[in-house]
């Protein structure tokens, strides 16, 4: 069981390898602008969501990121992804 909040050891979404399915375990909403937090939640980027990182950055930049959630692709900035702790989903242990 991963620590839910303030985990320094967990992987954040921006560091997830491309194409690896993962579940959002915790989100530190306090580091995000309130309005952006609301927008992310409205798009379904919230605790419990299954996400996959699809694309990362342009040229050498690591920003922005394209995240697949369900059948939708959403572009977000790295600062948003860094607030989200994720745990990779292994095929042997489904939801």
């Amino acid at each position, binding site marked *: 069981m991963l620590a839910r909040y303030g985990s320094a050891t967990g992987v954040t979404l921006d560091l997830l390898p491309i194409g690896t399915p993962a579940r959002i375990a915790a989100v530190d909403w306090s580091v995000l602008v309130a309005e952006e937090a609301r927008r992310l939640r409205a798009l379904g980027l919230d605790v419990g969501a299954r996400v996959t990182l699809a694309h990362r950055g342009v040229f050498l930049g690591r920003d922005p990121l394209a995240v697949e959630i369900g059948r939708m692709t959403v572009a*977000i900035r790295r600062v948003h992804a860094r607030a989200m702790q994720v745990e990779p989903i292994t095929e042997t242990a489904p939801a």
Partner: protein
Amino acid sequence: MTRALTVAALVGNPNAGKSALFNALTGARQKIANYPGVTVERKAGRLLLPSGEPVELVDLPGSYALDATSPDEEVTRKVIMGEQEGQAQPDVIVLVLDSSNLEQHLVFAQEVIELGRPTVVALNMVDLAERDGLTLDPAALQSALGVPVIPTVAVRRRGLDALAVAIAAARDRVNSDPPAPRPHITLPERRMQAHEMARAAILSETARHRLHARLDRVLLHPWAGPPILFALLFVVFQAVFSWATPFADGLEAAVGLLGDLVKAVMPPSLLRDLVTEGVIAGVGSVVVFLPQIVILFFFILTMEATGYMARAAFLMDRLMAGVGLSGRSFIPLLSSFACAIPGIMATRSITDPRDRLTTILIAPMMTCSARLPVYAVIIAAFIPDRMVGPGIGLQGLVLFALYVAGIIGAMVVALVLRRSVTKGAASGFIMELPKYQLPTVKDLALGLWQRAFVFLRRAGTMIFTVTVVLWLLLNFPRAEPGQDQVDASIAGTMANGLSVVLGPIGFNRDMSLAVIPAMAAREVAVSSLATTYAVSAPDEDEDAAAVALGDQLRAHWTLPMALAFLAWFVFAPQCLATIAVARRETNGWKWPAFMLGYLFTLAYLAAGATFWAASAAGLQ
């Protein structure tokens, strides 16, 4: 109930296919205006029920939730709740869901259905869902949601009749048996429910369609994506200039013929001069740019309809972040290359208010199509048509430099503004990347027609008026024998006064004169130069009047003057309509005044620097 007209509203997430459904349901009979007090576009049309009764159908801006985060979403919320001024509360809500994105769209759908308003669900784009490997069960969804669910394919007109029947039934049912509001549930609960409902409604599901992912892998590739975007933009601008030429030439010839025809049938008089020199020459010199505007909008609308525009925003985000903006600003700025007015209006999708204000303030620096006539005429007259490299002409290079000057100017100004007047936390970039889609010819044609109509209406009203007024100012009072008509006229007197200010940056009287009416629209500078030199030509000398505008310019201007004139037009906010739109969008005169001030200052400095540098370099 004895309401005159039933009102139905299309509601749904962005990218649910609402606009295509709206077009399919209402055809070309659409009214586009703004909601009072805000600049959110209100699209309304007539839908005929099976009984023949008309219904007013309103297309509301796409929303993810009822707690609004942008002016667009605020309008959607207010209309649904019946709080929007100038809009009766809809009798029926038509919820539009993307079949292949059900789980996501059902979250907002539940929030709307909870309100207890009469609601019908259009399960849209079922064909794309099928292509995506999804088989859906509308009946299961209907029993889960408790409202009628109609599968539709807007672009193929499938399910539209059934939808009209359901709208009529929902409207009639409310009279006898108003639905009760449902218990309010929290967002996580709603999301859980959406997940369950989507699972129950999906009969079978194969792996996610590979096409979108494969396209994105190429188009969003960190190294290949940006060059593809720039190549595409290059093709767009190339097309705007080369494809339009035969059409523009044709229009120009038609305008010339019309002028000759009027000359032939009307006896020589001041009135004939007004018609030929003022109306036909003036309005005609603007109408010839219709092909370029249509071509530019064709590409912009196609990029939007295919879903590539959001990818372009993704690719540009890093670059825009460098000057404190986000990828969202790219779309309004790209539209501003056609015209700053739709560009500034497109900033409504930018959620961060400081980002939005900055984008509005720099949008006029993008080289809009109205500057093209000015650039084209001056470049053709003063820049020699020779090659400076393989496939690179000097004229094209100068034109390109003018575009780049505008872009660099805008980026520098954005950087400065974000650190001063629009200072604040760096804005984020959160945006759905919609599925790729083939645009439909009908939707494209409708969009192009609406844009072309707006342009022609502008040419027929404002530009017409300005041209006629200018002609009158140029021709009265009449000159004494031996005196130049322009010098004697009211306009000439005004221009001489303005020359005191503009003289130091190299502008002569005719250039100062062209700048005044160009406040109405930049392209009027060309027609006013044409009118000025036509008026000042000796009366009986038909040959002199027929001398091309380019030769006239070369006879009266030096190269440094021409370059200064070009530099002026890169920055000068010469468009009353843009200023009016900026006032509306920023709700006051403060920011448009600021915009006018800083852009005129930039224009003056740029023109002055160009003039003195070119003169010092010995250019003639």
